[in-house]
């Protein structure tokens, strides 16, 4: 069997983070009762006209600029015509044939090496509504339509077929999602359907140059399903070639329950969308000044932020990568540092307790329930010697659960650190007397019993002893250091 190379490209569909829809003033807030976020425009009533939401356009241009795209000017919208009951006008206003962002690139870091991925086009379009099927659809004899989502602005980012492994595909999805979040263009929360991926997958024998027939996979709802679908599809295509068959250029749907892709019925695929320029919208002309202004106002992007965390905060590369991987976490670090906390200490809390607790409770990083202020205050309590490290961990856990301020927790729990040398010296004396073997070993030069002895002191003090002070007292008593 020949060695095969995987070739993947992505179409990323992201919901833009605008307060209102792309062509009307209706709210984009999810979760409203059906058809309450609608108006004559997004319902497509006879006589209405679209007016482009400037904020949606600005988000889209910023993404295009961040992806180093050329900006087509003038750029136009087109109508994509097809009949579906969730599509109010039975056409979708899109830019499929006339994207405003073209020929860009995106630097992807995989396993320490940087790979440049081409961005073929970036364009805007409107979302459709949603069909709601009664429990017993056949018995009910009807379905309902909720148009709350109709007209929500979507951005589509199409990459070239430049990804060569599942790892690269995963890295691309993560990095693209991160970029959108950093730009504030999209909240990109996968579980809310704010970002969707469609993968174009082909394989070819290693060493050959021509691309194999490309299969488009739809219905991918999480990073995990994308990975599984790519692995499945790669194996399916290799198997076809190995058995002398041919891969058909087609669209396939991922069936998560079965763990396989299935060809869409050709009827669903053979649409003639009859694209033509949308006559109700005027061409968009981007002046150099407008583009320069947006480019100048682009926020710090993930790579730059990581470098800053390493260089300005003195964080290890690994920690900086983790912390900047999620914009909300990186924002948290910056905010805590701005409040006076030591960057390394902040990093340690996030990398350690925060991520552990998030993981334990199955929470997403942007759901971190504590504030930068609370963490900065907690760090100050430790730095000031008011509580010890052990107590701080307990306080942190409680902050995480209740959201209470650290001072309140310390007060409520009666935490106070014993740093008084004479009080601690009495406990040290008692512990040394009660554990002569360990004391003798330590005195003889074995470092191991130190931890045990300190632990005994902590226990006697009900966890309130200042550990570094205890350490020093034991060293002094037994080794005269």
């Amino acid at each position, binding site marked *: 069997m020949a060695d095969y190379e995987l070739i993947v490209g992505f179409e990323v569909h992201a919901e833009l983070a605008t307060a209102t829809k792309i062509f009307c003033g209706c709210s984009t807030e999810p979760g409203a009762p059906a058809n309450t976020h609608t108006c*004559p425009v997004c*319902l*497509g*009533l*006879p*006589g*209405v*006209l*679209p*007016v*482009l939401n400037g904020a949606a356009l600005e988000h889209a241009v910023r993404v295009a600029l961040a992806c180093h795209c050329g900006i087509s000017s003038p750029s136009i919208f087109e*109508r994509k*015509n097809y*009949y579906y*009951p969730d599509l*109010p*006008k*039975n*056409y979708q206003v899109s830019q499929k044939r006339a994207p405003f962002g073209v020929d860009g690139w995106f630097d992807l870091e995989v396993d320490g090496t940087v790979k440049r991925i081409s961005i073929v086009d970036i364009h805007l379009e409107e979302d459709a509504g949603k069909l709601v099927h009664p429990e017993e659809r056949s018995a009910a004899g009807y*379905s309902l*339509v909720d148009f709350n989502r109709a007209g929500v602005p979507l951005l589509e980012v199409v990459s070239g077929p430049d990804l060569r492994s599942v790892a690269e595909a995963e890295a691309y999805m993560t990095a693209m999602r991160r970029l959108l979040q950093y730009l504030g263009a999209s909240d990109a929360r996968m579980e809310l359907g704010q970002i969707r991926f469609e993968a174009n997958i082909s394989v070819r024998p290693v060493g050959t140059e021509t691309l194999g027939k490309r299969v488009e996979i739809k219905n991918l709802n999480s990073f995990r399903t994308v990975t599984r679908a790519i692995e499945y599809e790669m194996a399916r295509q290799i198997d076809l070639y190995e058995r002398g068959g041919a891969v058909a250029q087609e669209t396939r749907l991922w069936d998560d329950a079965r763990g396989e892709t299935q060809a869409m019925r050709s009827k669903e695929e053979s649409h*003639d969308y*009859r*694209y*033509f320029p949308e*006559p*109700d*919208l*005027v061409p968009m002309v981007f002046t150099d000044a407008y583009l320069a202004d947006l480019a100048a106002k682009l926020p710090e992007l993930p790579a730059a932020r990581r470098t800053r965390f390493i260089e300005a905060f003195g964080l290890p590369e690994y920690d900086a990568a983790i912390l900047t991987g999620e914009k909300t976490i990186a924002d948290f670090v910056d905010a805590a540092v701005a409040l006076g906390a030591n960057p390394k200490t902040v990093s340690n809390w996030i990398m350690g307790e925060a991520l552990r607790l998030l993981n334990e409770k199955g929470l997403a990083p942007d759901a971190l329930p504590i504030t930068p202020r609370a963490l900065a205050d907690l760090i100050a309590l430790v730095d000031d010697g008011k509580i010890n490290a052990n107590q701080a961990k307990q306080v942190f856990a409680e902050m995480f659960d209740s959201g209470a301020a650290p001072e309140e927790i310390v007060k409520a729990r009666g935490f106070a650190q014993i740093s008084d040398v004479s009080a601690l010296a009495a406990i040290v004396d008692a512990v040394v007397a009660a554990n002569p073997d360990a004391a003798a070993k330590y005195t003889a030069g074995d470092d191991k019993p130190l931890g045990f002895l300190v632990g005994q002191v902590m226990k006697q003090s009900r966890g309130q002893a200042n550990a570094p002070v205890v350490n020093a007292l034991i060293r002094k008593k037994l080794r005269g250091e």
Partner: protein
Amino acid sequence: MTELYTLTAHAAHALLTAREVSARALLESVLARIDAVEPRLHSYLRLLPETARAQADAVDAKIAAGEAIGPLEGIPLALKDILCTTGVPTTCASRMLENFIPPYDATVVRRLREAGVIVVGKTNMDEFAMGSSTENSAFGPSHNPWDLSRVPGGSSGGSASAVGGDEALLGIGTDTGGSIRQPAAYCGVVGLKPTYGRVSRYGLIAFASSLDQVGPITKDVTDAALLMNAIAGPDPCDSTCFPEAAPDYTAGLGRSIAGLRIGVPREFFTQEGVQVDAGVERAVRTALDLYAKLGAEIEECSLPNVRFSLPTYYIIAPAEASSNLARYDGVEFGYRQTGTKDIIGMMTASRDRGFGMEVKRRIMLGTYVLSSGYYDAYYLKASQVRTLIRQDFERAFERYDVLVSPTAPSVAFPLGAKVDDPMQMYLNDICTIPINMAGIPALSLPCGYDRGLPVGLQLMGAHWAEPALLQAAYAYEQAAGWTRTAVDEAGRVTAAG
């Protein structure tokens, strides 16, 4: 005494402000006239006498309180049933929208209301504005007030027959390929298609978005200018609407036109397959003689690409229509055929029953020309030719202030004469369609008679040149002195003098 319903809007305004006549009396006169002639004309699809009376009484209260009223306040108007009106069915003369009640007002309707204009009813038209005779109305044709056996023109035939037949003092129409000007010509009234983008299209139920435009149908040029003042101007709800404020369209009325440069494009008189009727041409040439006497310089000219207007129009307009009318699928609003076995069946049957023949013909044409493999040969090519047509006009307007032609190749034709021959029906718009392709303004005004029926004179101007058109039209109207109508007891209108 003169019946109030025969008045122009500006004459009625003078009586209202002089307190010689009340708005209510004016309205009642119009409503009585409608009672008398509507069974023969069928200009209206729906009358709104109760809201109209309430509005008239409110205007009278204002006058009684000593408040000033606007120039069109209290004036009864006939509104084409293609403009959305809150709470009042807006049908486009289609079964498809027979029960459609808009929850919002078109921008033009809002502006009319703000100007105090009284909408007495919504007028008949060709279904979805597709036609030149109102015979494509799903609710029966309108009749020409000059000869009830003839069409009033279309698609704004109901507004034109209402104004021409004195069933309203003012009318609003829409014009995609001549739908204001041709019926105005046929009914012996004034019709203005403004520059594309001059009047908001928000709430105008779209036929062909890049061509549609709302405009006035009135008894004289002054009223057209006044009505333009009420409806023109920028609208944040319409991205294609010109963002600058509209001028006062009455400002140039009465100014001399000495030195006006008039071009007479020969393609508007004779073209392959179409020849303007001799009587129509004679009326137009006589009008040009009068313009010469008024000091205009007149010159023959040529716009060679204008001959491609009709085929280009019948690609672009149906293409846009096929998409604009896709929303009528029985799902959300409009006619729904029940009892079908699935959603596709419901959509198909609803569209089959809801649309008339001409609408279906154009949807199919438009779907075809946009289809994969045909787009470049048809739609794209037509868009390029459209640019050539526009450039022809731009070049002409470097030399001329106004172009003059007949509005239509003939006077009103008999009902039924062209219904079975769509090509003959389409050719009737040969003089008006080029204007929509170029996006420029054009005005039709009466310039005499051929075989006792009114002939329309078409004045064309450069983009945003409505003031120049109105000035030139006014000068002619005053000099020619056509006494508009004499009304007989049966409600028929005949040429006087």
